[in-house]
């Protein structure tokens, strides 16, 4: 539902509307309402803190999928200049579920790749709800290898329910496209910085999410399977998705603790959709910090560190 608010956001949105109405009324009628406005603003702050300090994993999933959440094409103009979109995999087709191109980030040339969801039904039909087909992944790899050719870093934004499960996608090698991207990203000789901005949906996310630094927005999630998919297999009903969401431990704090991501990027009060510019500013600072650390490294050293990072992932006995 475009523009819709989540159930747990509703009281906050209503209170903010009351504040706005009162402010308009006061200015129109020239009334003295400062004390009341201040009281309501404090009330809204404490309500926001109460709601957001104690989110369940399932509420985080809803925030990550919020219909107003900023997407790659919202972040690009706020973070980059001179963006030139590059389309098509040069083999079969253009896939609009992934956006890729060349741009400048704080004056350095980079390549940008990201999933793209639509904000309404029409856009979502065009963007396939941010679920790429093989040609999307192949386009992404083409652009990443172009960055490598010119020695420029790659920045990716991850926000997908998953790779598209369709007949054509299977016929054209969805598994091969993902596998190839994952392998090639472990050996790309330029820095890769990944930001999981919304939904990190399994292999469909990983296919553009192998990097030297991986960050997650505070309310993003990143999982081996969707909570609905997990619930339908292990609980035999999709209704148990909230239970699966808790069991899978896929929130940003969980992944930070497990060492799968390097940093949790705090979202503005009320989450990224309440202030996309503030979210973009936080992302921009993280990207700049990561690139400053990575750009000095010799390409061989960079690749060896990236491989070592992924070769060390996992939990087994005896502890490595």
């Amino acid at each position, binding site marked *: 539902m475009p523009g819709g608010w989540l159930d747990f956001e509703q009281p906050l949105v209503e209170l903010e509307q009351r504040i706005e109405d009162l402010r308009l009324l006061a200015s129109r009628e020239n009334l003295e309402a400062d004390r009341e406005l201040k009281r309501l603003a404090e009330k809204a702050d404490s309500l926001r803190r109460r709601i957001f300090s104690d989110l369940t994993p399932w509420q985080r999933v809803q925030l990550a999928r919020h219909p107003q959440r900023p997407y790659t094409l919202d972040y690009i103009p706020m973070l980059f200049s001179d963006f030139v979109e590059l389309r098509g995999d040069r083999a079969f087709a253009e896939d609009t579920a992934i956006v890729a191109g060349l741009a400048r980030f704080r004056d350095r040339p980079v390549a940008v790749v990201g999933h793209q969801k639509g904000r309404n039904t029409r856009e979502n039909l065009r963007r396939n709800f941010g679920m790429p087909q093989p040609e999307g992944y192949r386009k992404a790899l083409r652009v990443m290898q172009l960055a490598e050719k010119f020695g420029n870093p790659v920045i990716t934004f991850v926000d997908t329910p998953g*790779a*598209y*499960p*369709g*007949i054509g*996608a*299977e*016929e*054209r*090698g*969805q*598994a*091969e496209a*993902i*596998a*190839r991207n*994952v*392998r*090639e990203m*472990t*050996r790309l000789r330029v820095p890769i910085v990944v930001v999981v901005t919304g939904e990190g949906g*399994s*292999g469909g996310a*990983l*296919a553009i999410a*192998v990097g030297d630094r991986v960050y997650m927005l505070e309310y993003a999630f*990143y*999982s*081996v*399977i969707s909570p609905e*998919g*997990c619930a339908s*297999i*292990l*609980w*035999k009903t999709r209704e*148990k998705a909230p239970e*699966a969401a808790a*069991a*899978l*431990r*896929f929130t940003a704090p*969980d*992944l930070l603790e*497990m060492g*799968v991501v390097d940093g949790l990027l705090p979202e503005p009060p009320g989450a990224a959709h309440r202030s996309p510019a503030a979210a973009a500013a936080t992302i921009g600072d993280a990207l700049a910090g990561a690139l400053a650390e990575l750009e000095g490294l010799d390409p061989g050293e960079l690749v060896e560190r*990236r*491989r070592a990072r*992924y*070769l060390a*992932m*996992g*939990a*087994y*006995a*005896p502890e490595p």
Partner: protein
Amino acid sequence: MTWFRKKSAQLPMAFRRREVPDGVWMKCAGCGEILYRREVERRLWTCGRCGAHFRISAADYVAILADEGSFTPLFGEVQSVDPLEFSDARGRYADKLLEEQAGDPAREAVVTGRARIESQPLVLAVMDFHFLGGSMGSVVGERIARAGGLARRERIALVILSCSGGARMHEGILSLMQMAKTCAELGRLHEEGVPYISILADPTTGGVSASFAMLGDVILAEPNALIGFAGPRVIRETIREELPPGFQRAEFTQEHGFVDLIVPRGEMRATLGRLLRYFADSEGRRRHRLPAPPAPAPRA
């Protein structure tokens, strides 16, 4: 195709080791023919009438593929833990692991080790569908990565037989990261010119097909094996259409250009032998072409 639809976890051990029930006679789930069990075993667990390949354990594959007595298991010390303290409607993952291990903590969804096939040395990894659907968690990823590392250091071929529904949900994001781990090692083999043969058995889907299984220098498949990224049920529910006949079967996958050869189980060993000799010969010639190491300096 699932030959026997009962859930393996509910079957007694004797049945679980191999999805072919005990008894003198058995029925082929492919064509319905009543088959003499010893004849099926002699035919490497395939149906003499319709050619159906029954799903077998990793141990059975090792016996079929490797020279007799040549397999030395390695990396069995890498064993599963329960990093998320995961539990679902049926209980704790930790308990499920104990049950699947059946007293042998080294038992997991992959067996790895050294072997010889037609006298050629190799590193062999065979997945076992009977252990949690062959799912890839941290142990599968680590054993495969170590197998790759061993093959790379010794410059002998890596052969992986995949038979898996994909990543293991019970280990969450760590299972997904095994895709990157195995691919990172395969990237090294790729750069260093070490051969990797991938064999796809029924089924090879999800995070296994979308990582090492689809990256072989040569990709072989057993006849009629289900090969794909998304499972057929998920696709059917997403597009709300019936799937075309033969969809995602080995023959379909080959027709679309993602499998080199479909090899019946009885011919797999000879096919591997031919490929391994080719690779060994290539390696021998490569060494011959390398510049000779500098002669030791003459003594003063």
